[in-house]
Each structure stands twice: as C-alpha cells, then as structure tokens.
C-alpha cells in the first residue's frame, strides 16, 4: 500500500532529515514508526503526505507516485498531524463538510459516517461549536473524523494519541484495527512504545534519519520488550 524507497530529504541549510530510507506497508497492516525526537519520523511522514519535497527516492501509495500524481495520491490518503491546526473560526461541522466536499463524499454517506465517528469519539454535541473553543484532544478527534470521512486506503498519523482521553484512545485503536481489517493500511509514528507493541503488525525504528531496524513485531523484538530493544538498538547505532 505504501512503498518508500531510498528516500532522502535534506533541509535548506544542509541538515539531513532522512537518509536512504526504505520500507513497505502492506494492505491490512498497522505499521508503527518509532524513534527519538528529531530522528526523522515527522520528516518521513510529511514527505509521504506531500508536505515536504524530497530530492531522492520514491514514495508510492497503492502504486501511485506522490511526486508524479500528487492529487491521486492525496485522494486515497488521509493525514492526521501531531498538532492539528484547524480553522479556528469554523464550526466542527463546517470543517467536516469542507473535507467531505473536497473528497467528494456524497451527502447521504457523509451523514452516516460523521454521526458514527462523532458518536464513537463522543464529540457530536460539540460539532456546531467553533473549533476555537475545542481542547487539543477535541481538535485531534475532529481531525481523526475528517481523516476517516472519505474512507482512504492509507492513513498516515503523527502521534495520534497525544491529547486523547483514555476512552477516545481506546476507540481510536479500535477504529484503526477495523480500518486495516478492511484491507487498508496505517502508517503512524508514536513515542508510546506500549501502544506500538500492542497495536502494530510491523514496526520500524529510525535514528538520525536512518532506518536501524524494521520488520514484524516478533522479528524486531523477539522475546524482549519493545522498550528494551528500542533502547538497545538506538544505543548501538549511536
């Protein structure tokens, strides 16, 4: 579903964000992406969703190149940033209608989906309020509903659980699993290793812009805990 090959991104000024990164997320997989702060997780994610241009490598989503056909790639992808800056002066509903319009979700379908996800995340009563009045967690929930509203094939999430209350975090994990069981895929970054360990089918560890370990959960951690392996491999790579 998502294929990243030899991705290299250097920022203006020379700082290397990601170097020669290759990984593949197959349909039905939840793929976790972990690493220290500044390791290159967000850079990779932003390159995948078309926010960052990169000078080397290829990124394809369901066979569609994000460079050659960005609109097609974006139309089958959804992105949830770590700190969702939304339009403060719109109501939650206006924002969801905007996203649904852009993804051409028919009126009949959007109603059912919005109500379903809004109920699951317990935000329905706030949808007519302005986004400016939302807490960080509520904005995160709104961004999650907006991501699911058009039934993408690939969901890219940057620290999706930050700010969510325990019940919402549980609901989101369930939604993620259901989403992938339908043959879609999720690529997400997290610092919460326990979540990654329980939720992910595959995992990749990045450090200094380079991939230092990847594979199924068993391949990467074996009998140890993910925390132990993470600390070990990131120390070794140092």
């Amino acid at each position: 579903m998502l294929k990243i090959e030899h991705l290299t991104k250097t920022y203006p000024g020379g700082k290397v964000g990601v170097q020669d990164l290759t990984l593949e997320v197959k349909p039905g997989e939840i793929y976790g992406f972990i690493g220290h702060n500044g390791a290159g997780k967000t850079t990779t994610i932003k390159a995948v969703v078309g926010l960052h241009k990169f000078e080397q490598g290829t990124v394809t989503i369901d066979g569609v190149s994000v460079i050659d056909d960005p609109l097609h790639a974006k139309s089958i992808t959804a992105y949830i940033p770590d700190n969702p800056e939304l339009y403060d002066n719109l109501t939650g509903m206006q924002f969801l209608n905007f996203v649904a319009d852009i993804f051409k979700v028919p009126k009949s379908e959007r109603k059912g989906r919005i109500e379903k996800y809004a109920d699951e995340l317990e935000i329905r009563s706030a949808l007519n309020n302005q986004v400016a009045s939302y807490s960080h967690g509520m904005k995160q929930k709104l961004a999650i509903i907006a991501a699911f509203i058009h039934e993408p094939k690939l969901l890219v999430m940057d620290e999706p659980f930050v700010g969510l209350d325990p019940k919402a975090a549980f609901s989101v994990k369930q939604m993620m699993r259901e989403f992938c069981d339908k043959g879609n895929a999720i690529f997400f970054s997290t610092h919460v290793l326990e979540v990654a360990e329980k939720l992910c089918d595959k995992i990749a560890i990045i450090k200094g812009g380079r991939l230092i370990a990847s594979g199924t959960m068993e391949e990467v951690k074996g009998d140890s805990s993910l925390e132990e392996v993470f600390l070990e491999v990131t120390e070794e790579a140092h």
Partner: protein
Amino acid sequence: MRTLLILLRTNFLSLVGSYRKKGTVSVIAATVGLVVLGLFMIAMFAIIGGSTTFILVEKDLAEFAIFLSVGLSLVIALMFGVTNSTRDARGNDTDMLLSMPIPKSAIVLSKLLGLYLLDVLCALVMLVPTYLIVCLVGGHSFALFARGMVFAFLLPALPLFISLLFSALITYLKKATKFGQIFSTIVSMAAIFLYMIVVPNISSYANNMNISHAESVTKMKQILPFYWMTEAVYSGDLFCVAMTLLITLIPLFFAVYIHTRGLNGSNFHADNSKKALSFKSSSVRKASIIMELRRYFSSSNYVMNTLFGTLMLLGLVIFFAIKGTGGLSGHFLTETDGETVDLLERMLPSIWAACGAIFINFFACMTYTTPSSVSIEGKRIWLSKTLPIPTKVILQSKIAVSLLIYQPVSIICCIIISIVTKCGILGCLLMIILTSLFQLLTSLVGLIFGLIYARLDWTNEAQVVKSGFAVVLTMVICFLLAIPFTVASVAGIIIHQNTLMYLILGGEVILMAGLCAGAYAIITHYGVRKYESLNG
C-alpha cells in the same frame, strides 16, 4: 522593566527572523516599497502641516498653527489607533506569555509599543515642519522647537488612551453581545472618515481664516486639552505643561490597567450543542471558494482592511446619484485665455466613462484580499496541501473571493454613474470592462506578492493582514499601475474628442487584459510552485 525589555527584544528578534527567511532580494524589494510608501506619507503629512502653518504664520497666528498641527497629528494618531484597536489584542503567544512570570502590564506594553512608535512618527512628521516654520518664519526662539520635540513623544499617549478604551469596549461587546463586530467596523470607519474630512480640508480652513490673535485664543480655548498642549509647546506655561502631562500620562496608565485586566487566558464560546447538524455538499471548486469566503468573513481584521473601500465607493456613488452632475459644478474651474471655464461643461460621454473608471479603480487599489490570503492560512496550510485540491484551484478561489467582494458593487456603481452622467451603453460597458480588469489585475498582483512574501509563522493575524509586506507592496504597485491609465484618460480629456477617447479606452482595455493574462500566467506557473513549496 527588565521583563518588558526581554519581551521587546524577543518581538524584535522574531520580526527579524521572519524576514531573514525570505531571502535578500525579497527583503530589499519590500524595503524599497515600504520606503517609497513611507516617503509618500511623510511628504503628504509634512506638506499639509507645513503649508497650513505657513499660511497661519503669515497671518501672525503662529500659536493657532501649532494648535492645528497638534490637533491634526492627534486625529491621524487616533485614526491609526482606533482602526488598530478593532483587532484582537490576544496573539497566539498570549497564553504562553500569561503562563510565565511576566506582569500582564509588560505583555500589554510590549504589544503597544509598535503602535506608539507609529503615532510618534506621525506626530513628528506633522509637527517638525510646523515648529521649523514657526521658528524660522515666525521668528520664535528654538526653545519652542525643543519643547515641541519633547511633547511630540508625549502627545500620542492621548489617542493611544482613546484607542485602548475602544479596544476594551470592543472586546467586551464581542464577548457579551453579537454586535461587537459591527461596532468595531463602525468605529473604525468613523475614525477613517474623521481623518478624511479633517486632513484634506485643513489648509483651505487656514486659508479662509481671518481672525485676530485674541479671537484665535478664544477659539483654541473651546477645546481645552488641545489648548493646554499648544500652550505647553508655545509658551512653556507651567500650568499647561502640568495639565498636558496629566491628560496624557494618567489616562494612558489607566488604559493600560484596563487592558491588562482584560487580558486573560479564557475566551468566550457559545454552546450550540442542541442545534441540528447540517450536511450540505458542494463541488471541490465551490467548497474551496466557500472556505475562502468563510475565512474572510470570520476575520474582523481581514474584513476591515478590505471592505472599507467597497463601502466607501458605494456611499460616494449613492451621494453622487442624489446630487447629480450638478452637484459637481463649480468644483472644476480652470482659466483658459483669461476666461474661467467649468470643465463639467466640456464633459463628453467617453470622458465621463474614463473618469468613472478612474474613480472606481482608485477604490480598487485599497480593496483586495489576495495579498494576505496566503499568509492568513498560517500553520493550517498543511490542510490545503494534504487534501486532493489542485493548487491552481486553491489560488483561483483566492482570486475569486477578492473579485466577489468588490466586483458586484463596482458593476452597480458603473451602472449608477452611467445613468447619472448619461454616458451611454458604450461608455457604461467600457467602464465595467475597465474596472473589472483593473480589479482582476490588483487581485492577481496581490496574490503574486502574497506568495512571494508569505508569512505563515504569525502570532496575530493583523501582522499579515494589516502590515504585511505583500499588502503594502500591492497598494504601491496598484497605484503605480493606475497612473498610466489615468494619464491616458487625462490626455483624452485634453484632446476632447469622443471617438479618440473611445479608442484610448479601448487601448487601455487591451493593455490591461494583456497585463492580467501575464499576471495569471505567473500565478499558474511560478505561483503554483511557490505555494507548493510553502511550509507552515
């Protein structure tokens, strides 16, 4: 004091840092634009202040000249202050600053310093020529000049106080009622109208004034605060100095105190949980335009900065329709071969069309939304960049909103002017085409500058809506673009031949269409690439 200095330094570093990112060429071009505009403003204020003073000093009314200049500088400062007071004092950084051990007054003062310096600059530009003429032509001592310079730094405190009071009132009304936005718009417009009435007419007021010194003192005493300020400068009278200090510093401290009290971490939010959800659907293009329109109307800064020209145009055209062309007679007299001729009698349909177009285009130069439409996206730009909307459609929707705000009013005004001036269908059509093309051109130019000088890291939207490089440069360039068309029209008026005038207007249409096509090509090629390279 230490905290305030730290805040000021941080604001300054943040400002410098935001410009450093843009590259040397962009910064130099923008600086040149700002300098040109600044020099124009300085020259305009200095000429108004200087000429008024000169007339009055010649009539031995030096004291009254200072009184008028002080009053004028206060009106200008009030105009800047009140229009700025309509903006939300809270920035994105307010919550962070409030969580730190910083006195609220230091936060308020650090945010006010920019406005205060602008007011001081205006006061100096207006007052320095006045003091120089009073001293050099009127033969007064340079002690007056020295006193005047000291008070020039103090006088802006009074308009700043009034602005802060308005700001506090508007903040309260926005929280407590639905009318805060309307009130803030009315107050801003009233301030600008006051400025537009007082400033251009001050010289003719001075010219027509035939009063004795004693009568001028009586007149001045009718507005006591201005009189105290004038006397503090003119004679250094201790009572007036004390009163000037009282009426400037105490209210300022009071206003800062009120503002400080109002600065807190909580915002007012309505509860709409019981309202039914609406699931309206639209096409991609329509959704993009609706989003742009919502963003426009949800920002009081954005609306204030652009809608004013549209409303003023409509108001003036309605006034013109009521008065008719007869209302203009006697205002355009000229001497030809020793005879006084009213230019209105020489007006042909084509000339009316040209004049109408120039008049409407003048307002178009201050009514565009595109220069700040990119920067206003700020950190939310990730949304439009990750959604499957062609970049071209995003940019087109920004142009569409700019046209939607001004174009309908502009067309209505063209039709009204055509009917009142009886310039015929051809004249009306040419006026509509010329004004439409010019509005399109200003929107396109604005968008190009908006893309070049995009600033996504703002902490308060006023930074990009009111004082962004793109906004200022667009205004300068649009006025410059309007000059050749105005010159061509004036040439036609002098030649005074209907057919030739229509040909000139036709030529203007072709030239303007060419410029629009060129600007649009820049946007669809360079603009699209530039937008795609932006990161919030």
